[in-house]
């Protein structure tokens, strides 16, 4: 289907189902139950899941296929966000032109940074991209204040021109982002018994973009171009002596992944029309590296899983505090309860980074292929067990 083989079609369908039914899947607990705090099915968080999913899919095209580890991809995300907000300020609140501009500007930006950085490989390439990203961050933070509004961040104002729209709504407030009148923030709540499912227009736009982005990534992975990118990772020497110029291949991969990052940045600004310099900081670049490796670099679905995993941790795990823990362990004798809370305390709340770090280490050491490899091992183990069982049941009657 759509020029994909059976396995890839299945993968695309899985991603489609996961994103389309996310409001249900991420909301398994009734609203008033004690476990409701583990629900992640609210619009703001679901948007972040898919936006970072797109970011990681793009990053994986560069890192997963060519092995070039960029430590500056957040710069393209930030550039995308700024471009989108400028489009909202100058043109209209429609998200389409904003997202298109962010993809184009991020692509151009990636072309320049990639052209310079790709003169080196390995750690030198990583350092060059990191340096460029930090440079962009400082520029956005201070030097380019007229464009980026410095540390306050770029925001919409009532006196923005918006030539194809209104500067202000009838009641004197700033208009909201929309897709031909469909407001991004509008949410439909569906109450089913004790559950409350929320369907947000912005989320569904992001989800559709994610599915399209995933589809394009599959096509790239399976194309001759994708094969050349894997060849770059495997043996550049052989590639150069096989009549192939590896430079334009890596540059094209860099620009494509930069455009994915720009797309994610544009979507981010479309959901919440402001852009700050902190989006370009090196910690943000590191985050997408973590997502890709945690999920499984070089696999198709890995980065999406990694992005969801980390964002879930960041937003849900960090909300658990000592009071919640005391609630969970209240059935234990006081001394043991206090001791357990004391032991777990550093790993929760603000300490979620510690837990994430330990998990990351475990994955890198024991599952170098990331969560995808973990999944494959479980499936392999189950099918081996199943076939062993069926063999037994086949032989038993004969005996």
């Amino acid at each position, binding site marked *: 289907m759509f020029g994909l083989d059976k396995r890839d079609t299945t993968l695309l369908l899985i991603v489609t189902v996961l994103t389309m039914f996310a409001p249900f899947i991420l909301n398994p607990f009734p609203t008033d139950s004690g476990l409701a705090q583990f629900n992640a099915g609210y619009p703001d968080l679901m948007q972040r899941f898919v936006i970072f999913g797109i970011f990681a899919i793009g990053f994986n095209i560069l890192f997963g296929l060519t092995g070039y580890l960029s430590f500056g991809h957040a710069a393209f995300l930030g550039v995308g966000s700024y471009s989108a907000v400028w489009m909202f300020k100058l043109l209209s609140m429609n998200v389409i032109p904003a997202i298109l501009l962010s993809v184009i500007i991020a692509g151009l930006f990636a072309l320049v940074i990639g052209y310079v950085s790709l003169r080196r490989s390995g750690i030198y390439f990583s350092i060059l991209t990191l340096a460029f990203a930090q440079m962009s961050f400082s520029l956005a933070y201070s030097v380019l204040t007229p464009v980026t509004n410095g540390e306050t961040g770029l925001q919409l104002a009532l006196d923005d021109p918006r030539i194809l729209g209104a500067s202000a709504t009838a009641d004197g407030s700033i208009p909201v982002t929309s897709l031909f009148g469909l407001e991004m923030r509008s949410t439909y709540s569906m109450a089913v018994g004790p559950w409350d499912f929320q369907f947000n227009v912005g989320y569904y736009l992001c989800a559709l973009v994610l599915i399209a982005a995933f589809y394009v990534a599959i*096509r790239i992975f399976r*194309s*001759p*171009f994708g094969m050349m990118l894997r*060849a770059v990772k*495997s043996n550049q020497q052989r590639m150069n002596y096989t*009549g192939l110029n590896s430079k334009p291949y890596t540059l094209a991969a860099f620009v494509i992944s930069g455009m994915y990052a720009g797309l994610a940045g544009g979507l981010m600004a479309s959901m919440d029309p402001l852009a700050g310099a902190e989006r370009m900081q090196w910690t943000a670049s590191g985050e997408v590296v973590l997502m890709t490796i945690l999920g499984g670099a070089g696999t198709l679905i890995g980065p999406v899983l990694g992005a969801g995993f980390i964002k879930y941790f960041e937003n849900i795990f960090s909300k658990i505090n000592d009071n919640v823990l005391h609630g969970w362990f209240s059935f234990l004798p006081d001394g043991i309860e206090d001791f357990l809370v004391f032991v777990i305390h550093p790993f929760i709340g603000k300490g979620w980074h510690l837990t994430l770090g330990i998990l990351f280490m475990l994955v890198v050491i024991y599952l170098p292929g990331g969560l995808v490899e973990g999944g494959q091992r479980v499936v392999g183990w189950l099918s081996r067990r199943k076939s062993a069982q069926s063999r037994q049941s086949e032989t038993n009657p004969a005996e």
Partner: protein
Amino acid sequence: MGILEVKNVGKRFGGLQALSDVNLSIKENSVHAIIGPNGAGKSTLLNCLVGKLIPDTGSVMFGGQSVLGRAPYEINQMGISRVFQTPEIFGDLTVLENMMIPCLAKRDGSFELNAFSAVMSQRDILEKAEHMLEEMNMADKRHMHAAAMSRGDKRRLEIGMCLSQEPRLLLLDEPTAGMARADTNNTIDLLKQISEERDITIAIIEHDMHVVFSLANRITVLAQGTPLVEDDPQNIRGNPKVREAYLGETA
């Protein structure tokens, strides 16, 4: 006039004159061996031919065109393929994919942004790669990871990859180094077959005299960065200068 003409090539690394005044002419459709003791400059010469090094002096002409100052991939597209001392293949890719890449490079040139069509729908490339694998006797390994193969198989694959580009000149850098006797003999047979069946020139750098005398119909002896003598194999065997500089040492 040979297919490859090397004139007065010199190359210096710091205080070491690695090559000086090298003149070499390789005739079309011959098997030309370049031999010499360690440090004679064989590898340096080879690297000057494929664009990895640029000689300080002299000229290198391939089919009437200069190769100097061109990148390795450009020289390869001109028709020179190189086989390395340790097999250089795409270890993470399958054997079939390994074979498809040079076929794509031959068809599409050094860069082609073909990002939206499936590899497996490129019928012509697939057929050519499969055909080449059959010729190399490795069709049964097509879905194997290339890195998992034996050294002999890797060498066969690498030679097959080079041949699928239909080069005019095939350069081999000690193709049997570190191989078991059986693998060495297989490689000799394969190279013999290639030179007989194809319209191709082979230049080979080799230590193993058994390989050299089974294959070559012209031999250049290099010593201390300069050609000592160039002749037919039977004359090389009896040449006292060569015995002294090279064969005498190893005997």
